[in-house]
């Protein structure tokens, strides 16, 4: 039995030889499980970018290896290991959520594989843990929420109740908002990722009588929270603030009109007026029939960044130092306008305020209402000794 099995394995696995003429690009994300819609959206952005480049990132034949980390750190480690050992990738992108990102990066960074994150930017890797092979093009987990904290202070809110999901990203996002908000914290509650029924927590929230609520919820949890918040009659009495992920084109259908009027902060918006963004949004709408979300936009940017770097080294992927230097320059047309990295290879961003609104044709979208802060840096870069 073992013999048959090994024979089958030998047939199934390709005999791999990495050639300088070919880019082996890995894409690892959450493609199954509760947060799968994030990973799937990232993949859409990835596909739009690849299509635009004609399948050749940096002008080089590109072979893509897709890995599903199932939203699970243990699986993330295994999938990353497969990408390194079996698929022999040179660059990896994707990286949807903080916990799976941290896990996958362990073997990747140990094997010195260049990793370009397109979404979550966990704080441990932005300070002391920074690494020359890790480029976070998405954002640092704190940035949007720092902006929201400042925004809420600017609005003159006195008491704010804070809620979020109970994992690294949740702690990062919520604590960042608390840090920048200069008023009184009426409460700080974290709910398990698996928890979708917030009846008890909403009752406590109401009891605390805050001026406003700040939450960090994404995906299905965002849908559930918003609906229950509205059903409890809280939406009319206590305004809700969050960051962009709580409501976006992926979630509009599920949330319905409950989402209208939600004010959030994000480092990108479909209405940003620059040529790269216009091209991207048009291409995405053509392919998928709706506005893209930030997940897709950031992944598109990540691929374009890799493309620019590979072009700069003229396809010589073996020269890793040159490749890293080219990535660090961040010299590409970003959908977010000007793009540049901080010294810790996390981005310096403008953060915008947006409000969920309806177009004349009934389609919901994120209306760009203003800029909260320009060139915001994450708080951890000072500890990075790169």
């Amino acid at each position, binding site marked *: 039995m073992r013999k048959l099995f090994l024979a089958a394995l030998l047939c199934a696995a390709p005999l791999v030889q990495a050639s300088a003429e070919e880019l082996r690009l890995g894409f690892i994300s959450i493609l199954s499980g509760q947060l799968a819609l994030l990973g799937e959206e990232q993949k859409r952005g990835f596909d739009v970018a690849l299509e635009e480049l004609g399948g050749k990132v940096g002008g080089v034949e590109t072979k893509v290896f897709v890995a599903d980390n199932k939203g699970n750190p243990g699986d993330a480690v295994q999938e990353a290991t497969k990408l390194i050992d079996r698929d022999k990738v040179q660059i990896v992108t994707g990286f949807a959520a903080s916990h799976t990102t941290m896990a996958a990066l362990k073997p990747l960074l140990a094997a010195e594989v260049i990793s370009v994150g397109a979404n979550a930017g966990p704080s441990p890797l932005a300070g002391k843990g920074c690494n020359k092979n890790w480029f976070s093009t998405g954002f640092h987990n704190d940035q949007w929420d720092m902006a929201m904290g400042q925004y809420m202070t600017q609005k003159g809110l006195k008491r704010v109740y804070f809620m979020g999901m*109970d994992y690294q990203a949740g702690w990062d996002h919520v604590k960042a908002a608390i840090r920048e908000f200069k008023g009184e914290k009426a409460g700080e509650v974290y709910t398990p990722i698996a928890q979708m029924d917030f*009846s*008890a927590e909403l009752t406590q929230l109401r009891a605390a009588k805050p001026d406003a609520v700040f939450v960090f919820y994404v995906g299905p949890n965002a*849908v559930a929270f918003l609906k*229950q918040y509205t059903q409890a*009659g809280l939406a009319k009495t206590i305004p809700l603030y969050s960051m962009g992920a709580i409501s976006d084109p992926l979630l509009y259908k599920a949330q319905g009109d409950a989402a209208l009027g939600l004010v959030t902060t994000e480092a990108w918006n479909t209405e940003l007026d620059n040529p790269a963004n216009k091209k991207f949004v048009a291409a995405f709408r053509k392919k998928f029939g709706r506005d893209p979300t930030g997940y897709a936009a950031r992944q598109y940017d990540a691929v374009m960044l890799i493309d620019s770097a590979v072009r700069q080294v003229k396809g010589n992927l073996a020269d890793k130092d040159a490749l890293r230097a080219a990535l660090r320059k961040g010299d590409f047309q970003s959908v977010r306008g000007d793009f540049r990295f901080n010294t810790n290879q996390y981005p310096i961003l403008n953060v915008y305020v947006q409000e969920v609104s309806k177009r004349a044709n009934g389609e919901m979208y994120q209306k760009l209402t203003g800029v909260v802060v320009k060139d915001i840096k994450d708080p951890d870069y000072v500890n990075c000794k790169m």
Partner: protein
Amino acid sequence: MTTPILLEQGFNGLQLGMILFLMAVGVTLVFGIMDTINLSHGSLLMFGGYFIVGAVELTGSYGLGLVLALFATALLSVIVEILVMRPLYRRGHLDQVLATFGLILFFNELAVMIWGRAPLYLSVPAFLDGPIDLFGLAYPAYRFAITAVAAAVGSGLYLLIGRTRTGMLIRAGADKRVVVEMMGVNITRLYTLIFALGSVLAGLAGIMVVPLVSVQPAMGDPILITTLVVVIIGGIGSIRGALVGGLLVGVLDTFGRILFPVYFGTGTGSALANMTIYILMAAVLLWRPRGLFPATAG
């Protein structure tokens, strides 16, 4: 905690408890009468949720959709009973655990293939949207409706089991299968009826829960574990036990979630909150190994 808040949390606990009760009935009857463990019971909650979403989209009416979804759940459960459960009745518990575990894997992937990974949504029926006035506090009307429906179902079950011939047969089937068979009753059909009944209740739970949280693949699995705990606490084969167990777990879980973090901090507090029902189950098992209301159905 002020009295209105206490009251509101009490209602929350009651609502959760009633959902657990609906789930537990199916499990406890199948355990108690057919001596069979069915791990895929949670999948029926999931399918109930998917069916109502599909049915409402198809018919445009919640009422009609509800009937369709219940019917579809019943149909699905009968198919499962005939194909998978019947061969399992005679097998050992290990076989039942493994076979129904395989069913869960299959059902979850099936849901992904049919409906995709993104959660699907259903809005609360218009007349139940928003809060109602409950003893002076604004409580979501829909949650109250869930509790009311489950209570009505519970009463219906009580009448069915206690006052009808079918109910008598169900109770008898738990004790003396052979005797019932000798009476000329088709035990095979009785088992199918029992299984379908329990499954439809699970489907109903799923149907009612969807507008609150939306429906997604594998959503029934965590609820299954809690349901097993409820059944153990209440007593295998006992519907009264399912009710008491469900309410106990629902209320304890709700209050635990809120109170423990207050007294023990967020980390330890939430761990304790999650552990509560398991500690309760362990305690019940050690003090009353057969549950609070053991033995026959009803």
